[in-house]
């Protein structure tokens, strides 16, 4: 098997606060292969966005990467000097943020922002960069790009602006795109277009995509594999159809039960009782144990490590072959 585009190993991210250090990401590992879309799903505060920011090296103080390694096509990027990491951003990793309305500088024409990005990373003349910018706008589906290139962001609708943001993310042909809730701020009717655009771009360019979202529906539609995050850890990871059809982790089960389907109208949507713990109050043992219907003594004491189980990997004591008694 070829080397993955992105390989994250035992990543830890911490935030220093007045009340001590908070661990936002705890021991997270995953890979993304060339052309693959990995969906990262979880509730607000589960650490999915922070994971994305860690990969692209935009964790700001008081946060810091406290441990683990991040490799981009073999190159270790988590400890690169600032200037070298800057060259990686935009060039080899493209990022799409949640809110297209605020992602673009309102005082600059969209074309100038694209040309600026292209010329930062590729040695192209002003006019060649401009031609490329027009091509990019056309590729992301903006009509009359040669005219729209001289428009200001406020002259674009939300969906069109997100297309501009995507054009900016792909303008230097990155190997990896991190899309952080790219559709959350958009109208439902536009969401599907943006999702299929990201999917198409990933396929056409062989780009690996890390799609961060809380919307399981979006993941099921787009992703090849899915990582379910809970309280800063990966609860379960595996091929999307397997995880959707046969979730292993009790939290993933709850999550899948919460997806409405057209076919199964007789089934009631399942709710997960309670809410995710704050970073300052993560329980001992498995962080999900207070909400878990299957929790037993071991879950309250010992933290579960990821276990391979078929195509999936799950961090849950229920699937541990070692009997609970002997561990305790």
């Amino acid at each position, binding site marked *: 098997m070829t080397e993955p585009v992105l390989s994250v190993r035992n990543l830890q991210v911490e935030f220093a606060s007045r009340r001590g250090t908070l661990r*936002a990401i705890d021991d997270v590992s995953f890979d993304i292969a060339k052309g693959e879309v990995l969906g990262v799903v979880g509730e607000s505060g589960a650490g999915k966005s*922070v994971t994305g920011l860690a990969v692209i090296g935009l964790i700001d103080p008081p946060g810091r990467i406290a441990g683990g390694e991040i490799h981009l096509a073999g190159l270790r990027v988590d400890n690169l000097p600032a200037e070298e990491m800057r060259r990686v951003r935009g060039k080899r990793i493209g990022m799409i943020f949640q809110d297209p309305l605020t992602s673009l500088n309102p005082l600059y024409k969209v074309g100038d922002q694209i040309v600026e990005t292209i010329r930062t990373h590729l040695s192209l003349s002003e006019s060649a960069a401009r031609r490329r910018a027009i091509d990019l706008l056309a590729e992301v589906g903006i009509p009359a790009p040669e005219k729209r290139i001289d428009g200001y962001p406020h002259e674009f609708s939300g969906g069109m602006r997100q297309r501009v943001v995507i054009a900016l993310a792909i303008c230097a042909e990155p190997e990896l795109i991190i899309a952080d809730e790219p559709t959350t701020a958009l109208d439902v009717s536009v969401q599907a277009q943006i999702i299929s655009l990201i999917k198409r771009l990933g396929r056409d360019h062989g780009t690996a995509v890390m799609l961060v979202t809380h919307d399981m529906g979006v993941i099921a539609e787009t992703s090849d594999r899915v990582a379910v995050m809970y309280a800063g850890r990966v609860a379960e990871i595996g091929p999307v159809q397997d995880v959707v059809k046969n979730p292993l982790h009790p939290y993933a089960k709850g999550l899948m039960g919460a997806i409405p389907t057209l076919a199964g109208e007789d089934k009631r949507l399942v709710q997960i009782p309670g809410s995710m713990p704050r970073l300052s109050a993560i329980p001992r043992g498995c962080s999900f144990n207070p909400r878990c219907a299957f929790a037993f003594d071991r879950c309250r004491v010992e933290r579960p490590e990821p276990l391979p189980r078929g195509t999936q990997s799950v961090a849950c004591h229920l699937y541990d072959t070692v009997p609970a008694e002997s561990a305790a």
Partner: protein
Amino acid sequence: MSEAVVPHPTEKRPAAPPGWFRRALDSDLFYSFLRSKITMIAAGVTLLFFLVAIFASVLSVQNPFDPAQLQLMNSRISPLWTADGQSPFLLGTDEQGRDVLSAILYGLRISLLVGVLGVVLSGAIGILLGLTAGYFGGAVDGLIMRIADVQLSFPAILIALLINGIAKSVFGNKLDEMSMLAVLVFAIGLSFWVQYARTVRGSVLVEKNKDYVAAAQLIGLPAPVIMLRHVLPNTTGPILVIATINLALAIITEATLSFLGSGMPETMPSLGTLIRIGNGYLFAGEWWIVAFPGIALAALILSINLLGDWLRDALNPKLR
């Protein structure tokens, strides 16, 4: 739906109870006060200034306003630590034989008096107009706030000078000391009311639409009285901040007017007047006549400003 990408630990604190007074007693305020050495020093200096101003007559070696106590043979003595220094004139004397330290203590009294009275008057005008504008709304509100807008674009010193000139024109050029003091207080009061009015008006507009006002009216309680009980506690914090910062501004304004010759006369000098008098002797090398009143004025304003800054940050963490 929007998710905080980065956890903000500070946001996770439970909401503070409403009302600035309870917040003031909250340990955070005292904590920040105790932690900030500069603020403690500033508070100490401010307190000291007020105390020496109050006890000026006890602390001074002479009453600089009493010509009988001044002796010309004592004129232009340099400070005590210089070669020509003479006891008991610690900071030297001016050309009339007036002890500079005593003059500063008495001048401080005038400066603080005008400043405090000016702040009280501007606060009273501002709160009253703010309540009126917010409560009545419509044309009354429009008129008051338009005036406020226009006035805010003019520097207070210009307005104060104009009021001063008009007062002189109406009452004649020869005003006695106490009337001059009253004119200054009046000028400052009319120059600094806008901020109070805006703050109070904003609070009234918020309270006006709350259910308890309607409820109070239903059971026959007068709405203005009920609202006052809510509006004033809510605005006490901001008003205190504005008043503190405005006290510094009022003292500067008074000193500037006096320096320009449109403020306190030389027979009853404030710090600004003393600086104006001393400025004339600067070229003769008698620096102490202007330097010490200047230092006193600068230290006073700096201390009050530091207190105001701290108060603003402590009562309104969002501005930090």
